[in-house]
C-alpha cells in the first residue's frame, strides 16, 4: 500500500488534514472545519509519526457513531495510503435500485391483483377470492357472525367507514393522553413545589402561606402512520384510509401512503368530507397499483421525512400485510433503524392467518424483533380493541 502523493500545492499537514476532513464529509461523516483544528490538536497529543497511532486518534475524534467507526479504516486508507480513490469517486452514484428484481414467487399474486384490484367495488371485493390463501379458513369461520366480525375487505359502506374512523379516534385519544414524567409548576397538582413555596415564603417572614404545586403536564405522543396501498392491500385501502383520517383528525398525526413509492397525505386527509377524502385517496392509491417495497419505502421515509417526523415521542404505526418484494433481511435492517429513531413501532396486519403464508411469515418474522407490537387488524372489532393495546404502549 503506497503512501498518497499529494499535489505540490497542498501545503503542509494542515492543508492535507482539511482535505481529509472534506474526504470524510463527502463520504457521509458529519465533520466540519472545527474538526480540522481538533484533529491537528489530537495528532499533537500522540506520536503522529506512527500511522497506527494517528489512525486510532483520528478515529476516536472523527467517528460519530458505530457506522462511522466501522468505515473509518477504509476511508483513512483511501486518503492517506492511496487505496481505493477511484472507488470513492464512484460512491455517490453507486446507489442501486433494487425494485426491479422481483422474485418469481410474486408473479401470480401481481397478475391477479392487476385484473381484480383497481376496480374493486364494495360488492366485488366480497367475492372472497383473496390473494392470500392463508386467510381463507378464518373467513369462512367468521362469516356467520355479526357484521362487525366480518373481514375488513367486505366492509366499504359509510357506516363501517365511520366506525373505523371512530376506532382511530379512540386510539388517538389513548395515545394523546400521556403525561410527562417531569413536573412543572401548575395551579393545581398532586405535588407541592417546595422550591417556589420557600421563595415566596420569604416575603411573608418565612411563613409558607401560598402553596404552589407541581403537576405532570400532558406530553402527547405523535403518531406517524404508514399505510400500505399496494395491490394486495387495495381491498382494505378505504377502511384504513378512514382509519387514518380519524387518527389525523384527533391526534398530532402524520400519515403516509406507500407501495413502491411513498407519499405524504396528512393534508389531503384533513378534508372534512370523509367519503370524498377516502375516495380521492384510494383513487390516488389505486392509480399506482402493483407491488410493495416496504423496506425501500421505509428507507426513503427515514432519509426524507424521518428527521422531522420522528423523535423520542413518536409512535410509528405501519399498516401492511407484509407482502414485500425486497428480501426480509432488508426489512429487518430498515425497521431496526426506524426503531432507534422512534419511541414505539407498531405493525397492524389486516391479514388474518398470515402465519400460514410463507412469504409473509418470512417478512414478518424478520420484522418481529424490531417491533414493539404486532397487532391484528382484520376486523372492525379488532380495530376497536386496539385502543387498549395502544394505551399500554
Amino acid at each position, binding site marked *: 500500500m503506497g503512501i498518497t502523493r499529494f499535489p505540490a500545492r497542498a501545503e503542509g499537514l494542515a492543508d492535507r488534514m482539511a482535505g481529509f476532513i472534506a474526504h470524510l464529509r463527502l463520504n457521509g461523516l458529519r465533520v466540519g472545519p472545527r474538526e480540522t483544528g481538533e484533529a491537528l490538536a489530537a495528532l499533537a497529543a500522540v506520536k503522529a509519526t506512527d500511522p497506527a497511532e494517528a489512525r486510532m486518534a483520528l478515529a476516536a475524534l472523527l467517528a460519530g457513531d458505530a457506522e462511522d467507526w466501522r468505515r473509518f479504516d477504509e476511508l483513512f486508507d483511501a486518503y492517506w495510503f492511496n487505496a481505493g480513490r477511484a472507488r470513492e469517486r464512484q460512491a455517490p452514484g453507486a446507489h442501486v435500485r433494487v425494485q426491479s428484481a422481483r422474485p418469481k414467487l410474486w408473479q401470480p399474486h401481481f397478475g391477479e391483483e392487476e385484473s381484480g384490484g383497481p376496480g374493486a367495488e364494495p360488492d366485488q371485493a366480497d367475492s372472497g377470492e383473496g390473494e392470500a390463501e392463508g386467510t381463507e379458513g378464518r373467513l369462512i369461520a367468521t362469516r356467520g357472525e355479526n357484521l362487525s366480525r366480518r373481514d375488513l375487505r367486505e366492509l366499504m359502506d359509510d357506516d363501517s367507514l365511520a366506525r373505523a374512523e371512530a376506532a382511530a379516534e379512540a386510539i388517538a385519544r389513548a395515545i394523546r393522553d400521556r403525561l410527562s414524567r417531569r413536573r412543572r409548576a401548575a395551579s393545581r397538582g398532586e405535588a407541592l413545589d417546595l422550591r417556589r413555596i420557600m421563595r415566596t415564603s*420569604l416575603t411573608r417572614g418565612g411563613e409558607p402561606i401560598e402553596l404552589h404545586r407541581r403537576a405532570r403536564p400532558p406530553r402527547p405522543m405523535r403518531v406517524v402512520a404508514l399505510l400500505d396501498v399496494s395491490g394486495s392491500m387495495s381491498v382494505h385501502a378505504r377502511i384504513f384510509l378512514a382509519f387514518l383520517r380519524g387518527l389525523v383528525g384527533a391526534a398530532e398525526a402524520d400519515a403516509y401512503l406507500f407501495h413502491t413509492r411513498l407519499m405524504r397525505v396528512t393534508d389531503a386527509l384533513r378534508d372534512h368530507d370523509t367519503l370524498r377524502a377516502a375516495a380521492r385517496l384510494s383513487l390516488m392509491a389505486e392509480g399506482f397499483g402493483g407491488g410493495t417495497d416496504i423496506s425501500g419505502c421505509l428507507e426513503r421515509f427515514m432519509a426524507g421525512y424521518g428527521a422531522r417526523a420522528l423523535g423520542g415521542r413518536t409512535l410509528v404505526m405501519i399498516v401492511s400485510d407484509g407482502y414485500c418484494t425486497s428480501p426480509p433481511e432488508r426489512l429487518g435492517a430498515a425497521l431496526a433503524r426506524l426503531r432507534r429513531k422512534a419511541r414505539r413501532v407498531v405493525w397492524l396486519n389486516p391479514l388474518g392467518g398470515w402465519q400460514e403464508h410463507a412469504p409473509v411469515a418470512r417478512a414478518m418474522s424478520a420484522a418481529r424483533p424490531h417491533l414493539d407490537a404486532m397487532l391484528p387488524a382484520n376486523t372492525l372489532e379488532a380495530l376497536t380493541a386496539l385502543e387498549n393495546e395502544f394505551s399500554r404502549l
Partner: protein
Amino acid sequence: MSIKTLQAELAREGYVADDRLAMALHLAQSLGRPLLLEGPAGVGKTEVARAMAGVMNTELIRLQCYEGLDASHAIYEWNYQRQLLAIRAAEAKGGMDEAALFSAAYLLRRPLLEAISREEPPVLLIDEIDRADEEFEAYLLEILSDFQITIPEIGTIRARSRPLVILTANGTRDLSDALRRRCLYTFIGYPDRETELAILRARMPGLEARLARQIVGVVQALRAEELEKTPGIAEMLDWAAALSGLGVNDLAQAREEVQATLVCLLKTAADSDAAPPEVMDRLIGKVA
C-alpha cells in the same frame, strides 16, 4: 503518558483495554473532551470509568440516566427541610440571615455539580445517556461545553477542575449529532478470543488455564449462534465464577454442571431453548 503505559496501568486495575480504547482514553485526557462509548450490553463500557478512576487515583462520580431525569436529580436541589428548620430556629432566636438560607450548606449537590466542584479532577460517568430524554441531552451539552452551572440564588459555579467525562450508550435511542460532535467516540465490540482470555485471567487469576480456554471458547461459539441476548463479558465472568464455585475443572466431564449454570449466560426462555444439551455438547466438543 503514552497509550502503552495507559494500557499497562489499566491492566493493573484489572481492565484489559485494546489499543483503540486506550488511545481514545488518552485523547480524552489530553484534549479534555468527553468520551462516548457505544457497544452491546456487557462488554465493559461502565467498567472503563471505574478502571480509569483507579488509574488516575481519583473519585468516580456516576450519573445513571433514566427517562424523566431532571435537573433536581442530576445537578442540584435545595434542601427544603433543612431550610424550613433553619427558619424556625432563627425565629426562636430572633433575626435571621436570608443569605445564609441559600448558601452551600443548604445545597444538595447532585452528580453533575459534584463533578465540577472538586479540586482534583474526578471521573464523571454518565451511564446510559440514551435513556434520558432529549431535553436532558441538550442541558448536558451545555454543561459539557462550558463546565459551569448557574444556580439563580448563588450565581455561576465554574469548574475548579475538568472532570474526565465518560458517556455510555447502547442504542435505545439515537443521540443527537450535536452531542456526538462534542465527544470522542469509541465502539466497544465483543472481544476476540485472546483478549477475552486475558480478561478472564485478569479477573480470575486462580482459574485453571485449560478451563479458562474452554470457557472462553464456548462463550465465543455461543455468540456466533443466533441468540436474542448475546452473552457479554460480564456473563462470561459470571459463568466462570459459577463453574469454579462448583469445582468444575473440565467442561467435557461436567455436562450437568454446564447445563445447570447456563442460566448465567442465557437470559431469555427462547435462548435457553436454543441451547439444549446436544448443542452444548457440540460446542464443548469443539473447544475441548
